[in-house]
């Protein structure tokens, strides 16, 4: 895990530095002497390998460096402020996506090739075509402008969380629903399902006590990849609803060429994905005793 983080950080570090231009380029050019002083103040005039060395050394001590553009703040402060917000929104969205998706998928499998299945299938296909970038404006129109039920931006109360979370989780509900449908169908065709049916287990019990638990592993193993793509959505949602999460700082850093901020955000993102994958592995151990960690 540490190796992966190290590789990602190293690649990002050098990719960012290869490009010409820097954080102090602006439309109003500063004089050469000022720029020199600025670069010296942040040690940006050292050889690249020295900068890399001191960055990694700082990283080990938990220091992510200063932000070049958001003066008076260190990258760690900014990200520490944004992380809980982003984790909250992403976490709720992911949880809703898995549970609702699983429920829809199981229902579709139960009524396979009937009207219910076909209708839900239609919804799922539409859901897949509604990434947060599209869902967010549509929801704002409906709930903030026409119905005036929910606020369209900011983060002052739990109410402000509803629209961002919903617009973030729509395509993932669809993806999880489709995945659970096929893996429930697979489980339904296995001998144990037939046995349960033969001994008179009710349809409801068959589905939720026999089929769904055994269909859980493929569904949960999609959580990791889903979380990785959810990042993109969370950036859109944070920018669109003006929520000060990590995505907001990352985008700002990328626009300003604020190297340390971009690097810090990449680091936090990668770490959270890896931690999430690790947690899912632990859950696997609980739900399927046949799985062993090496």
């Amino acid at each position, binding site marked *: 895990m540490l190796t992966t983080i190290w590789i990602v950080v190293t690649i990002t570090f050098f990719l960012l530095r290869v490009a010409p231009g820097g954080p102090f380029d602006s439309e109003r050019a500063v004089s050469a002497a000022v720029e020199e002083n600025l670069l010296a103040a942040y040690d940006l005039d050292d050889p690249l390998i020295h900068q890399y060395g001191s960055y990694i050394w700082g990283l080990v001590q938990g220091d992510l460096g200063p932000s070049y553009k958001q003066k008076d703040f260190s990258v760690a402060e900014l990200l520490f402020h944004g992380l809980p917000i982003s984790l909250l929104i992403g976490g709720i969205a992911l949880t809703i996506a898995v549970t609702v998706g699983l429920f829809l998928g199981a229902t579709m499998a139960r009524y396979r*090739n009937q009207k219910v299945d076909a209708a839900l299938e239609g919804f799922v296909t539409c859901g897949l075509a509604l990434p947060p970038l599209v869902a967010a404006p549509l929801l704002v129109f409906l709930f903030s402008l026409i119905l005036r039920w929910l606020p369209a931006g900011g983060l002052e109360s739990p109410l402000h969380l509803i629209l961002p979370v919903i617009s973030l989780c729509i395509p993932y509900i669809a993806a999880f629903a489709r995945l659970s449908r096929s893996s429930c169908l697979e489980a339904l065709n296995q001998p144990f399902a037939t046995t349960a049916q033969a001994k008179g287990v009710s349809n409801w019990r068959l589905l939720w006590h026999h089929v769904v638990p055994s269909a859980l592993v493929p569904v949960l193993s999609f959580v990791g990849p889903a979380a990785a793509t959810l990042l993109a959505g969370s950036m859109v949602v944070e920018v669109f609803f003006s929520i000060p999460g990590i995505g907001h700082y990352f985008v700002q850093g990328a626009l300003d060429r604020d190297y340390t901020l971009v690097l810090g955000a990449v680091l936090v993102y990668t770490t959270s994905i890896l931690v999430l994958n690790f947690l899912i592995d632990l859950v696997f151990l609980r739900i399927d005793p046949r799985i062993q960690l090496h």
Partner: protein
Amino acid sequence: MTPNTQIGFFKPVYVKVTCGLLILVLIVVVVGPQIATWEYDAIHWEAIGVPPSGEHWFGTDNIGRDLFARTMMGGRISLLIAVLATTVSFCIGLPWGAVSGYLGGTTDQVMMRIVDGMYAIPYVLIVIVLVVMLGRNIYLLFVAIGAVSWLDVSRIVRGQALVLKAAPFVASARAMGLPEYRIVVRHVVPNVLGSAIVFATLMIPSVIISESFISFLGLGVQEPMTSLGVLIADGGKNIYASWWQLAFPTGFLTILLLLMTILGERLRRMVTGAERSLT
């Protein structure tokens, strides 16, 4: 499991309608900017932020540019970048997958581990880092998107190449003493081309999403040129004052994505013959 292409949403008649509508959208995008009365970047001082009317069908934005012309132009740019990015990913993924699948052994192992490694890093991070590195430029944008979306193509092609490797005509080509690169170029690649192209077409909606997403964040297409993502970002800033600035670009993108997704879904089912698919 029978493929349920005959019921509900995927009845052939709906598919025909979807196809027709998509062609209509494409025609609109191609001729739209031409038939629009206004230029997409012309500023009309006398009409700043006016709602939709007979003169400006979709209204105008805050500096008085005609939104109908801008939406059409944005749709055109988004589609153009999507097609180009898909082509880039196709050009990287096809040879990568074909070589990896055909040669097999250690080469295959190394090449596929590289692909796995890239899968592990969230692709948005790579795209944004690439955009920061290469600068904000339309031409580099599709290269950046293409450079991260070739992974899927290469996996599909590799799978096909593995099957082809065992085919009699490849064995006879080898028996005739053809050099390996020639077998890959003349025998493997032409045979995987069909399914690779179908798969690449399926990728277009997700590439449109990536492009709009990056432009939305301000990292992609730059003013005065526009794309659907840029328009949605601008509209989002003014939703209370002028709803039309957000409504029309969003509506256009929604319709485009819905049509392409439904059609792609149908196509996928016809090709795989079943409903197996992830994501």
